[in-house]
């Protein structure tokens, strides 16, 4: 086994340094070393999206990413969305529309949705395609779509 390397990245806005062995998955680093368990493991194989985090603003399955490859990057997890007591508009919207049932897919779904909103993906069919990497077995996705739409409207209003 080769040695651990020291990596530094920004995690939810804070600069963090970790010593990581080469095979360590970003998912494990976030959940174990950083102690942020909001990001979930549903398959460990890139198939379900429960482990989705934003890596420099792009949604990625953290179970498929080696932590060492994240040196110098910016990572956002579900814990990094709310500002104090104020939730992100997509979080508010998901609560409001009923997009949360068992909640296990929810952190991943929310992170992908944040990326859709930030990249202004407005075409509903395009959104459905881009969300297809996040499986949800409970909701049938309908109220998740409603939440994205609602969040888009409310953040539009905020910025006017």
């Amino acid at each position, binding site marked *: 086994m080769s040695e651990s390397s020291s990596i530094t990245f920004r995690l939810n806005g804070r600069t963090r340094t970790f010593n990581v062995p080469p095979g360590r998955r970003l998912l494990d680093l976030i959940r174990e070393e950083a102690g942020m368990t*909001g990001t*979930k493991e*549903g398959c*460990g194989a890139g198939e379900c999206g429960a482990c989705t985090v934003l890596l420099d603003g792009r949604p990625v399955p953290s179970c498929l990413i080696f932590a060492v490859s994240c040196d110098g990057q910016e990572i956002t997890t579900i814990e990094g969305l709310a500002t104090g007591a104020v939730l992100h508009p997509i*979080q508010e919207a998901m609560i409001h*529309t009923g997009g949360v049932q068992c909640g*296990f*897919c929810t952190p991943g779904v929310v992170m992908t949705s944040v990326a859709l909103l930030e990249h202004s993906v407005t075409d509903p069919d395009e959104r*459905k395609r881009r969300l297809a990497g996040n499986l949800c077995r409970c909701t049938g996705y309908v109220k*998740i779509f409603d939440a994205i739409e609602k969040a888009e409207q409310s953040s539009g209003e905020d910025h006017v």
Partner: protein
Amino acid sequence: MSESQPPLGGSHKRLDAEAKITGQTRYVGDLSLPGMLHAAVAMSTTASARVRSIDLSAAQDMPEVEAILTAKDIPGTNLIGVIFPDQPLLVEDRIRMVGDRLALVAARTPEAAWRAAGAIRSNVEPLPGVFDPIAALDDGSPLVHGTSNLLHTYRVIRGEHEETSSEAPVIVEAEYHIGGQEHAYLEPQACLAIPERDRITVVASCQCPFYIQRAVARILALPLAAIRIEQAPTGGAFGGKEDYPSEPAACAALLAHHTGRPVRFLYHRELDLQVTTKRHAMVVRHRWGADSDGRLLFAEVDAVLDAGAYAGLSTVVAERANVSAIGPYDVPVVRVETRIALTNNLFAGAYRGFGAPQVSVAAEATMDRLARKLNIDPVEFRRRNLLTNRKAKTCTGQVLPAPVLAEACLERAVEASQLFVAGDRNPSFRKRGTGVAMCLYGINLHRGGQFLDRSSAVVILQPDGSVIVRVGLTEMGQGNLTAIQTVTAAALGIDPEQVQVWQPDTTTVADSGPTVASRGLHTSGRAVLDAIRHLRERLDPVAADLLGCDPRAVELAGNEARVADGKSSIPFPKVAEEMAARRIESISTGWYRSEPREFDEETGLGNPYSSYAIACHVAKVAVDPDLGLVRVEHVAAAHDVGRVIHRSAAEGQVEGGIVQAMGWALTEELKLDKGRLLNPGFTDYLIPTSDDVPEISVTFLEDAPGRGPFGAKGLGEPSFIPAAAAIRNAVCDALEVEIDRLPLTPPTVVLATDPEQPFLHGLP
């Protein structure tokens, strides 16, 4: 926002939503304790064999391994199983299915545990197996247990048969092959066992902490009172966490008991798909007859369920399939026979709908076949045969109370479906079809399982007027915490935010049976109302003292206690504060058990359920006949729900149910080879994604009250049942063929339209 909404039937914020949306909800995988060990299991990779020996030596010496246990290390009885304890926790000699456990490992890391499990070697003598449920019932077929593979037969025998059967002007016969299904909850099986020498706590992702309590007690030979099972936040279940979690929990408990250290057992996805229970695959044969005016004369149904290698819950699943076999239709003569076959396939268990979806697909397909033969529109044919206020006799002869909303559900769903305008789709999806299907679903447990049909509730009034509630039924995503919060708030006249419902724990509530059969709200809601009634026996006199009125005149509404004449009132928290000051008992318990019912096991006649919900789904599909691809474009759903308790949660049940049923109907194929699952991953086992979702319209009918709180019925399963049948009927309508196999995968669809298709050889 939430203040202005009435709690009952509104959509106030779910009580678990904020924790889930911020990632703060702690599922089992998010819990760890100092010194905690990780469990792994060595399993059989063949389906039928005799074990000669198990060699643990290589594994024992591996680093970080703390314990390796086999059957001889079990202090209690090495048998689990909810109804028939026919399944050893750890194999002693006979292997009956892939995934049978040979040995358990506890190690300091999950990786070390799985490495050691992989180093355990077994020497086995292969035995012949049986993998086809029909063949399993033949004489001379290899036996899975004992002397017969026929586990049980259920029947319904109603009406005089002989003449009708031969004289019916129109008769159809068909044989349906309905596939199983994997639950695919997003959180795999998970539990954490924490030992305290002669007692133990297990925190588990589950639907029934009481089943786990019994399994752990039996394995460890401890009294039930020494076993505490706490239901963890549960990341989806759908029946897959009804009976199955007893197995990992008993494994973790055994390892924890043995090592004296906490043991966490998390399944990884492949293991979860490979070894956990599935929906029963079924073969359903029909012979149904109608007169030339399109009135049903008789229905003969012969259904065989593939139970797999252990009994599990197969008897109760078959019991429900048996009485659900003809849908909400008025049929004067009924003959149903439902048999359960043991095979060496993965064992089947509870799954949303409990056998009813399979027989409903068959019933609704036969209804369409008859309609086509009679040249009557399928909707009109159903209209002529639906149960109504005057013709209200179900399959088992139970008379439904008026109003019977079958026709109303049909009309509302059809109307909603007609409003749908198909958009421009890929032109290769050139065939379009519409399909309709219905269901009649007994809310709560079948008469045979009635001994389990009760719930406990505990209500604790806090000195500040807020309220703690516990019920024995569980939250797995469906919204029971919020439904119970809503019921409590409505009954006490306070805001829902003042009510906190906590997940059950076997030390805080009495055994309430499993959270299944769409009975969560019904049963636990009634128990809460009972607890509140008891609480008010103590609360109302205090309020009356403060108000200067008779206790019988006290009303609770608007966060106040009021005198019925409306002249004086006092804030609810003041009453709570006064109760605390007077040291009056502020905890009360409640209980509910469903009404006793008459049912004859031999004839299958009587009242299996205390109330029923009816539903209709209409599906519109587009089909690419060359590639065999199906897109569901629209589903209109109309549900007889009694009373909506929480609107967005109710809609969410229907939307989620429809999409899950769509997966079962179209893509979710369990590919089994000699009892081994060939596609244990989401790359090959395809559950619906956001890109597959149809437009869905949901209508609730609230004119026929059920027996739940405020007249609610149940919705979790009726939301699933008609959809797959409607989709099958729509595809057949589009292609003008009959397809009698589910799922409708591309090869199945192509083969149905082009039996000569040269690329599809070898398809069954």
